């Protein structure tokens, strides 16, 4: 039982962090950023030296953890901000559909860039190997990493909440997420807030990359895609633009996945995702605005 709870929490953590990254950007820009998954993949590949050989040439991955973590987070933030400056800034006035497709195209470009540098063959890396040890807690034997994933996620969530509530920048960001043009009329700088959101979202992508990378030990240019999809769905169910909702829905999705894996008979297990998506449609039908509707989210004019 306890084991299932931990399984659900650790999977939910990944989804929640991903959903948060998408919700942050959606909040300020009304952009559903499909390139988010590719930013995650980029962060992991930043640990390697570009090479199309089967054997991975570890580069930054050898750094001690106190350098490695900031390095990956910075990579994510940097790439994300770069995307904003080069691409999304030109689409601020465009309709959401155009922006969504632009983000998908951007994701494609990042993926093909990685493909060119690293080839499509999955690479392997031993990231923070100390975390792969099993530990015993309340009679349940868990991989240490699972525990760390949960704890890290909690720390990130608490830190982000404090940041959003206690700092001027967080205040401006929350105001901008709710009503962008009103915030600007009160002197909140649009570029700064949007770039801040992209930087935070990119850093979250970096965090996911680290967790995911050390959990799977594999680097694959597609690796961000599945998390991105689940995170995207979590963002919507949670109520687009609502950060709390995104986190909640991320954990719910993680729990739903794990519980279905446990409960469904073996013949139905491969269809697990169909049930999850069916549940998504149900949620949308009954609460089209999401579980926690973002209050007063006005369309940007």
């Amino acid at each position, binding site marked *: 039982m306890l084991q299932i709870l931990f399984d659900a929490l650790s999977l939910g953590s990944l989804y929640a962090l991903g959903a948060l990254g998408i919700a942050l950007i959606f909040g300020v820009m009304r952009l559903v950023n499909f390139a988010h998954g590719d930013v995650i993949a980029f962060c992991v590949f930043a640990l390697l030296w570009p090479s199309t050989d089967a054997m991975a040439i570890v580069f930054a991955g050898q750094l001690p953890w106190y350098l490695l973590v900031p390095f990956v987070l910075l990579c994510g933030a940097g790439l994300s901000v770069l995307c904003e400056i080069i691409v999304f800034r030109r689409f601020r006035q465009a309709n959401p559909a155009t922006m969504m497709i632009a983000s998908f195209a951007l994701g494609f470009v990042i993926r093909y860039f990685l493909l060119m540098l690293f080839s499509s063959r999955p690479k392997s890396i031993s990231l923070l190997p100390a975390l792969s040890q099993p530990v015993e807690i309340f009679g349940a034997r868990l991989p240490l990493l699972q525990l760390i994933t949960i704890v890290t996620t909690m720390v990130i969530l608490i830190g982000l909440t404090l940041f959003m509530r206690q700092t*001027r920048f967080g*205040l*401006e960001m*929350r*105001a901008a997420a*709710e*009503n962008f*043009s*009103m*915030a*600007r*009329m*009160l*002197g*909140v*700088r*649009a570029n700064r807030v949007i770039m801040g959101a992209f930087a935070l979202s990119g850093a979250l992508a970096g965090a996911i990359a680290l967790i995911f990378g050390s959990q799977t030990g594999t680097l694959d240019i597609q690796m961000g895609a599945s998390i991105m999809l689940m995170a995207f769905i979590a963002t919507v169910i949670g109520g687009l633009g609502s950060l709390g909702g995104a986190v909640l829905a991320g954990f719910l999705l993680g729990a739903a996945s794990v519980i279905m894996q446990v409960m469904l008979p073996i013949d139905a297990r491969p269809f697990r995702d169909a049930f999850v998506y069916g549940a998504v449609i149900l949620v949308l039908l009954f609460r089209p605005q999401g579980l926690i509707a*973002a*209050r*007063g989210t*006005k369309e940007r*004019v």
Partner: protein
Amino acid sequence: MSLLALSDITIRYSRLTAVRDVSFSMDEGEILFITGPNGAGKSSLLRAIAGVTPVAGGRIDLAGHEITGQAPENIARLGFSMVPEGRDVFGSLTTEENLLVGTGMHARERGWRSRAADELEAVYATFPMLKERRHGQAGLLSGGQQQMLVIGRALMTNPRLVAIDEPSLGLAPNINDQVYERLIALRAQRQLTLLIVEQSSARAMMVGGRMILMRGGQIVLDGDARTLGNGEAIQAAYFGYEDH
């Protein structure tokens, strides 16, 4: 030199022209009412000054700077503070957070924190009710309280010119009276320049000051509110009787 000057401003929404060649200026300390029927282009004009609606032609100057085409946040930094129609409070933020959003733009100046704190106390002094609800969610305030909040929020940026779009909209008459009472007191207290958009000219005539009447995107009357108070001229202009 005037604080705000508009010359030949034209605003278009795709094929629809909302405002056509409008020019006027305001002096420091002045109170100006812009009135007119629905669709006269009043709100568009205000939004254009604030920088959120692009202008198709003409030029706007504020405090000696040209602000045509400037970003809203830069216009705000020149001392323009806007209270838009429909009281756009940040509903998920607390009352106090709402008030503090606008103080951030002075963050580069020394001592802004203590000044922001002073401002906050001043606003609470003017609107004691806001202090009571300071940690409550702004979205849960009543309409009148929200109106006070957005006015207070506009004052927190330490502005020279406050523009208010339809403060009476959706408020009970007695609450509306209260709002105006406070506004007039504030103006006297801070030497504010006020630009107020209202549909009816009744309020302008009561308060006094200058009044511009717009219709069909153009200015049809401009003068002292009380002199223009002659009902017939106003009504003719308001409803466009001269066309018939």
